[in-house]
């Protein structure tokens, strides 16, 4: 049930997103979801892709630094208060969120959650009946 993103460490300068996505495109990798965070002179791009192994190999072959951080993909109801429900549940257990993003696809609402306390967060969410999506499920949304 684990879910990993593809993270790429790059310099924060023009052309980096183009460079990374060009490599992915040339290797026939489709991007399902993306976020780019920058901090001063560097940035981290995170992707959910359809062919992860191929993406990792082709990026590394071009000398890029890649890692596969584990995240939680939580499915919530597509209605007001859903995010709040997750947030309050985690708050009750003093679990801090590091990076978080969300989207709606085909009327399904998905939260992508990063936290230091991954195992604990997973247990708490599953106990409360939240569905955590696997990599394959995410790719088929």
């Amino acid at each position: 049930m684990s879910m990993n993103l593809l993270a790429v460490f790059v310099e924060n300068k023009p052309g980096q997103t183009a460079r990374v996505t060009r490599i992915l495109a040339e290797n026939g990798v489709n991007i399902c979801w993306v976020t780019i965070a920058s901090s001063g002179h560097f940035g981290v791009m995170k992707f959910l892709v359809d062919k992860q192994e191929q993406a990792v190999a082709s990026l590394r072959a071009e000398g890029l630094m890649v890692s596969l951080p584990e995240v939680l993909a939580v499915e919530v109801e597509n209605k007001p208060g859903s995010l709040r429900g997750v947030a309050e549940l985690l708050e009750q257990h003093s679990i801090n969120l590091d990076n978080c993003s969300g989207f709606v696809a085909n009327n399904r609402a998905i939260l992508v959650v990063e936290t230091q306390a991954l195992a604990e967060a997973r247990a708490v969410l599953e106990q409360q009946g939240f569905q955590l999506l696997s990599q394959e499920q995410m790719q088929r949304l």
Partner: protein
Amino acid sequence: MFWDHEVETLPRPGLEKLQLERLQETVRRVAARVPFYQQRFAQLGLKPDDIQSLADVRRLPFTTTGDLRTTYPHGLLAVEPGQAVRLHTSSGTTGKPKALFFSRRDVETAADQMARSLVMTGLTPNDVFQNMMGYGLFTGGLVMHYGAERVGCLVIPAGPGTSERQLMLMQDFGTTAVHILPSYALYFAGFLEQKGLDPRRDLKLRKAYVGAEPHTEETRQRIEQALGCDVYNSYGLTEMNGPGVAFECEHKAGLHLWEDNYLMEIINPATAEPTRNGEVGELVLTSLRREAMPLLRYRTRDLTSLIPELCACGRTHRRLNRIAGRSDDMLIVRGVNIFPQQIERVLMAVPQVGRNYVIQIEGLDNLTVKAELSAGAFDGKVEHVAALEQQLTEKLRAEIWVRPKVELVPAGALPVAEGKAKRVIDKRVL
């Protein structure tokens, strides 16, 4: 293992007697043949016969880099121009280079002391020696080549080619020893890693000789780990024959300086007074065997200290500590003296830091240290990279007393030099 057991283990009184004979011979030689030294001797009222003991070396004039430039190209020749058989130059970052001539005997002496140095680390005629230093005017190529050939190794004069080609040679010919710049050794290790190669499994490397760039013990350990072989520190300078002036033995505990070929002094660079045993100072060398272009009391600008104790290997030639820096590499930032090696030591001791770095100074003394993040250290989290930068800033501040800006960059983002690495970029307009 010994190349020349007798000379290498000559008891000190015999060695010092030999040094004095050669010093006197050198002084007589330049007094008879080199107008530059004739003038200096005349100014000092000095005659060759005044040199009666090794301590009398202090009566001789210094020779500086500046002297080599002002006498360029032929001013310090002690043979007829026709008797020189080889020219090397030492690159100058500004203006003319320094020209150094070798007679036939000088080429022999250089090869012989190089062979001694290599055999001292355990190199044998069965080794396959890939010389990855630049051939040409730089001594690191040819002088090392002659030495390894003299040992009887198969020598591959690879020069500084692309990593692909270096790797092909290593694999096709079973290279067991390399001569390589420390900065390039780290880069090459990264290249192997990217290819999915493990040097311990996929190469036959046993030994790497690194020199031509000052580097720290931390860097040596990094290279040993990354290439899976023993790494030996080589010290030399073109003005004194190139590599092999001082070299580590199998104990890797300081560099034996070949005292039958050089007379060393370590002085306080500001006062020119000798330092006491063990204190760091500038290394000053007088060549004792150079024929074409002997130099008296050459100010190397390299900072080091003497290890007074004898080495367990049994050699009587004394050891120098690893070069702590070159006096003209010293940076003054916000009024504080900083050596690039201090920064390197901090960086290379942190496993999350990769293999390449540069130091930039610009504007009003703003010091920026850019270092590559090591491949395993990236876990996808922006905040972890930022925290590591913060941690490095604090470690550096504690070492150099100036707070630098630390920027971690992806592996491969910093330029890789073909020759000596350019670690310091000073953009200040002074």
